[in-house]
């Protein structure tokens, strides 16, 4: 009876999913209720988890609850500790949720809400969740080994080393991209700049408080920090209105970029307990709180989507970034659908804390579905704005015109009416001087979120919620920059240690300073070129980041496929093989187009060629010549970076193919590097 009821329930969920997806996909010419997107995502994810996830867990991985996990076998009270599955689910979700699933969908909304939403739903179920689950399973069976270690052991030394270099390069592009998002959000915004600047002394205070005043009271300290940050948001409003302080905190993009670069250098060299860790704690709580608030806000307000399902920019002429919906929608939304970085988390802390093998399904597969849901919410937040406002905020001056009037006229001519006066009124309502040309995704996401949150409190609180959302985004982006620079430094030291031993020592100060400077200089260069780019920079850096992140996914899926073959599950390699093939097609197409497309709004080399022709024809003023030469150099550098990413991943792919062919032909042993089976002694009650 229970079984029959269960089947009826799942049949009902399937019908609701089909109807919701139908409404989302087929409605044209009218604003649809955002609940249809929520229902389509929630029901499809539930079906994916119940049927696809469980199928992989039972048939492919054969998860075994009688087998002791590393958390039990290697229990040490620190890293290895059997943990309640729900607590670990929250822990893992907090670790994988960063700015990516929020910003990516906002940028991809230039194609309309439909392509991005469908990709998030399908990509998360068939790709992202499969990747996270597979890598988590593989790491759990290998005592919590990292992705790099597994690549080296399962594929070979070439694959392992290439994976390490790939991760380091991707980190550099990632840090530059997210730093540019913050710069563009704070440019010319004294309210935002003051709020974010205030988080630094607040974090220092928290660090000292936690270390010397009330050691160990992290929750208490974080609650105080949150109170102070909210006070800083109110303080920011007063600062912006002040004739004396307002100009001090009104910074240009270049000044902000320099400030973040200097900050990144010092933050990566300071003791972690002083600045990074307290802000990381605070950022984690704020992130979980805001994501929950956004979910509740959408459910309560049920806003209607103002963006159309498709815009004219599917043809590749978009103002936010150039390129057609295929492949660029699929690399712009990375983290919400599939993200290589998740593989680093799934082979990090989480596998060391899983109490039972069966929990890996909920934690690995389930957390990614929740991340997909966050991405759908970000898509909703971007789509509830009037399209004219969305494009006015996200389009660079170099595309739509340098003045508000010119930009409004260009955007209106695309069929998305907007006026300079209405934008000015909106800017005043959120406490900004202007909302034109605020590229990067963060300001428009903040506007969308503020729009949803403020429905409860009226337009008067719009400014608070806008700056609250900006603070929330900047808080974890700065944490990412601190931590990323530090990790990049460790990786570089690890590599250089093979060349000169002292450089590998993390306690040798000259080595620490030199490697920190090298990492900061690397991402700082890309950030600086992005800030100086007349097209806003994000149109270059975000696709580069998307390509690199998806390529890291391809590396993870190569490892996953190799392990499936070695487990004698070759008949199931389509599980990782299909997302891998899709990512290879998408990323190599996008990468190829970014380098070689003859269209100057897409291809780096074509853009450099157009600038070169302008220089040679004498059409550019002499004063602009140096600037144009710099842009040409940057285009060529971006093309090289993109080419290096493709070459690195092609290396891993070919190496993997060689290994797979050898095993399938029987010329290579299918040696699995799993830890030996040890029966569990944990009883169900103790969990």
């Amino acid at each position: 009876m229970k079984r029959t009821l269960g089947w009826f329930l799942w049949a009902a969920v399937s019908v609701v999913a089909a109807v919701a997806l139908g409404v989302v996909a087929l409605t044209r010419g009218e604003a649809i209720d955002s609940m249809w997107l929520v229902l389509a995502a929630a029901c499809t994810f539930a079906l994916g988890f119940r049927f696809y996830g469980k199928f992989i867990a039972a048939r492919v991985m054969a998860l075994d609850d009688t087998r002791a996990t590393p958390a039990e076998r290697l229990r040490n009270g620190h890293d290895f500790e059997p943990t309640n599955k729900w607590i670990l689910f929250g822990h893992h979700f907090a670790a994988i949720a960063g700015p990516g699933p929020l910003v990516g969908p906002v940028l991809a909304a230039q194609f309309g809400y439909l392509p991005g939403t469908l990709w998030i739903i399908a990509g998360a179920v068939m790709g992202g969740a499969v990747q996270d689950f597979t890598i988590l399973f593989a790491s759990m069976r290998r005592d919590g080994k990292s992705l790099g270690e597994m690549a080296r052991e399962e594929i070979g030394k070439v694959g392992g080393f290439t994976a390490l270099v790939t991760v380091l390069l991707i980190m550099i592009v990632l840090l530059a991209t997210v730093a540019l998002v913050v710069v563009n959000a704070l440019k010319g915004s004294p309210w935002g700049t003051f709020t974010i600047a205030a988080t630094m002394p607040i974090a220092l205070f928290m660090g000292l408080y936690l270390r010397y005043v009330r050691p160990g009271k992290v929750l208490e300290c974080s609650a105080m920090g949150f109170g102070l940050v909210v006070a800083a948001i109110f303080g920011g409003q007063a600062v912006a209105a002040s004739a004396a302080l307002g100009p001090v905190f009104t910074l240009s993009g270049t000044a902000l970029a320099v400030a973040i670069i200097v900050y990144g250098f010092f933050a990566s060299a300071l003791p972690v307990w002083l600045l990074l860790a307290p802000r990381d704690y605070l950022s984690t709580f704020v992130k979980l709180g805001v994501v929950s608030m956004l979910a509740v806000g959408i459910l309560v307000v049920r806003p209607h989507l103002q963006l159309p399902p498709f815009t004219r920019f599917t043809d590749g002429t978009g103002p936010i970034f150039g390129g057609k919906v295929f492949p660029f929608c699929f690399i712009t939304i990375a983290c919400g659908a599939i993200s290589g970085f998740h593989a680093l988390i799934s082979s990090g802390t989480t596998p060391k804390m899983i109490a039972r093998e069966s929990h890996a399904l909920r934690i690995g597969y389930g957390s990614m579905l929740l991340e997909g849901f966050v991405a759908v919410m970000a898509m909703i937040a971007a789509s509830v704005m009037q399209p004219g406002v969305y494009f006015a905020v996200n389009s660079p001056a170099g595309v739509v015109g340098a003045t508000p009037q010119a930009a409004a006229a260009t955007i209106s001519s695309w069929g998305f009416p907007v006026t300079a006066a209405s934008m000015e009124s909106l800017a005043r309502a959120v406490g900004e001087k202007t909302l034109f040309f605020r590229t990067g995704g963060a300001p428009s996401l903040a506007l969308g979120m503020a729009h949803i949150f403020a429905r409860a409190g009226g337009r008067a609180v719009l400014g608070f919620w806008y700056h609250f959302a900006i603070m929330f985004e900047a808080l974890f982006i700065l944490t990412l920059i601190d931590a990323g620079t530090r990790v990049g430094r460790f990786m570089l030291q690890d590599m250089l240690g093979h060349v000169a031993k002292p450089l590998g020592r993390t306690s040798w100060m000259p080595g620490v300073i030199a490697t920190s400077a090298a990492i900061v200089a690397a991402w700082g260069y890309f950030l600086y070129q992005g800030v100086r780019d007349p097209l806003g920079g994000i149109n270059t850096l975000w696709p580069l980041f998307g390509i690199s992140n998806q390529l890291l996914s391809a590396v993870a899926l190569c490892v996953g496929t190799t392990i499936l073959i070695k487990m004698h599950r070759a008949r199931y390699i389509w599980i990782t093989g299909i997302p891998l093939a899709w990512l290879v097609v998408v990323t190599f197409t996008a990468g190829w187009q970014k380098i070689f497309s003859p269209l100057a709004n897409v291809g780096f080399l074509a853009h450099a060629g157009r600038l070169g022709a302008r220089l040679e024809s004498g059409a550019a003023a002499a004063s602009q010549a140096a600037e144009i030469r710099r842009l040409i150099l940057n285009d060529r550098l971006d093309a090289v970076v993109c080419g290096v990413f493709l070459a690195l991943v092609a290396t891993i792919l070919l190496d993997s193919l060689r290994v797979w062919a050898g095993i399938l032909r029987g010329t290579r042993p299918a040696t699995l590097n799993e830890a030996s089976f040890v029966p569990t002694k944990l009883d169900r009650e103790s969990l």
Partner: protein
Amino acid sequence: MKRLKKLGALLAALLRELADESAYRRHLAAHGRAHSGAEWRRFSDQRLRARYTRPKCC
């Protein structure tokens, strides 16, 4: 009501886990030590050193 209480307890446990407070309790229990400022600093240094050698997710 009972379920609500259970949910509240679970959320509190999650927050303590995210704040490393649970890990600290486990550390004290595993080593048979009492809480002190010096002990927290020792635990925190070790834990943070391990945490920030791994990349954070984007």
